[in-house]
């Protein structure tokens, strides 16, 4: 499974690679990273036919995670990729907006990787 992680913090890449080191070794998952919404969109354009799961931050300079979500859900209608929002701003306003725009899940930082892995398994099986 291809997972695109969108976060303006480059350290996020190291963290995901270390956290999923076993899964990466076993080729269960394959990560791609983007440090902005714009970069994420151009990645998606290049790799249109890959089955992709997107984990996106919300607060980012330039295009926000919610705008990215809106773009993705509008453009890639069939089949729509699964998009999970991961944000430090876990307030109800952000949550409601993300859900209205079609987010498939909503996680708050600090990320609980045990929970995230659980969710990915379910997504993978579904």
């Amino acid at each position, binding site marked *: 499974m291809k997972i695109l992680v969108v976060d303006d913090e480059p*350290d996020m890449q190291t*963290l995901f690679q*270390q956290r999923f080191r076993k899964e990466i070794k076993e080729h269960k998952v394959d990560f791609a990273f983007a440090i902005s919404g714009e970069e994420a969109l151009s990645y998606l354009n290049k790799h249109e036919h890959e089955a992709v799961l997107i984990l996106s931050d919300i607060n980012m300079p330039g295009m926000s995670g919610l705008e990215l979500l809106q773009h993705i859900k509008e453009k890639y209608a069939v089949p729509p990729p699964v998009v999970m929002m991961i944000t430090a701003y876990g*307030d*109800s*306003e952000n949550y409601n907006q993300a859900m209205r725009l079609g987010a498939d899940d909503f996680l708050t*930082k*600090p*990320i609980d990787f045990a929970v995230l892995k659980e969710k990915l398994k379910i997504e993978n099986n579904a």
Partner: protein
Amino acid sequence: MSLEPFIAFLYILHLRKSSKTFASLQQWDKVFIGLLLAIAFLFVIEVVFSAGFIIKWLWHLLMLFIITATFKLPELSRFKTIMLAVLPLAVILLLKDLIKPFTDQFFVSIKNLLNYTFPLATTWLIALSIIWTRQQKALEKERQLRLAEEQQHKIVEARKMELELLVAERTAQLTRQKEELENALVDLQTTQKQLIQSEKMASLGELTAGIAHEIQNPLNFVNNFSEVSVELLDELKDGPLHNLPQAEQEEVEVIINNLTQNLEKINHHGKRADAIVKGMLQHSRSSSAEKEPTDINALVDEYLRLSYHGLRAKDKLFNASIKTNFDENVGAVEVVPQDIGRVFLNLLNNAFYAVTEKKKNLAGTYEPTVSVSTRRLDDAIEIVVKDNGNGIPQVVAEKIFQPFFTTKPTGQGTGLGLSLSYDIIKAHEGEIKVETKEGECTEFTISLPLNIIPDI
């Protein structure tokens, strides 16, 4: 015919008339009437029966009586002048009758003398009478003038009294208004202080929320990297470590264990920071829960038990006596039960903490007590949580509602409990107040208005 009855009659008439102005003569009015009637009666008898020879002596007596009375009685002293006018004539008339029977040369010459002086005396009488009448008139005029003046004076006096009353009334009114204004000023100043306080709190709350969110990003890395590093070290221990020579293996293992411990510490403190941040975020969390009619007494009771048993579970030695005094009239109030419950829990936990702390230092007779009471007011309800702990020093009491302010040892309190409680009570348009006596007690009073306007 004699002059005397006329003079007496006129004189007494004059006295009667004067009695209207001089109060001291009024009591004699009947005497005057009696005398007038007597004079009239005698006069009639004298005329009808020609009894002049007897009655003329009566006239003389009457005149003597009148003259004597006028000179002797103090009430009549003002009429002495009239008597002075009458006196010569009366004396002449009396003498004439006295010496009538005598025919001596001496008496004849006196008789002649008297006859000569008679017109003089009469003139004297008339002149003095006229003068008297004029004087009386002038006096009367003067009197009237004085009366008028007195009247005027009385009116002015009354007017003055009226004005004084008015001034007193106005003064009282002004004093009252001044007091009202002063009270209003004090109220305003208090409100201003409260406004400034709540503004401070609000901006602090907002700031807190902003900081809290931003802290979660670095915290994400701290917690996750420390955790994943522990995992990596475990892997190192399980695999590559065994490839080292035995002597080095031990040394490296010690170092790895130390690293693991350190990372676990980093993770532990990161989690602590996370807990603090989560607490802070509850400030900014817009209360999505709905207000609903809630039985406040039941809610207080529920959280009282929750707090007590929660603390018992943590510390088996913990004990405190609880006093409750619930007012049945409190009934159901529109609140967000979870939020208000959190406030109760915070206050109760603090109260139990305070009495426990005091007990630690004061073994023996001290009985830790927490009392909770509710009260129904006219347009609000009041919940009072009181403990007999150590109280709060004044310097500290001013800060207790500020976020992150705590007197508990590091790690035991986030300093957000009361700050959060403050926000929740404000959101319910209520008030939270603290009263404390250092070393004796602390009392938190929450008042919630009964007519809460629902948030839209």
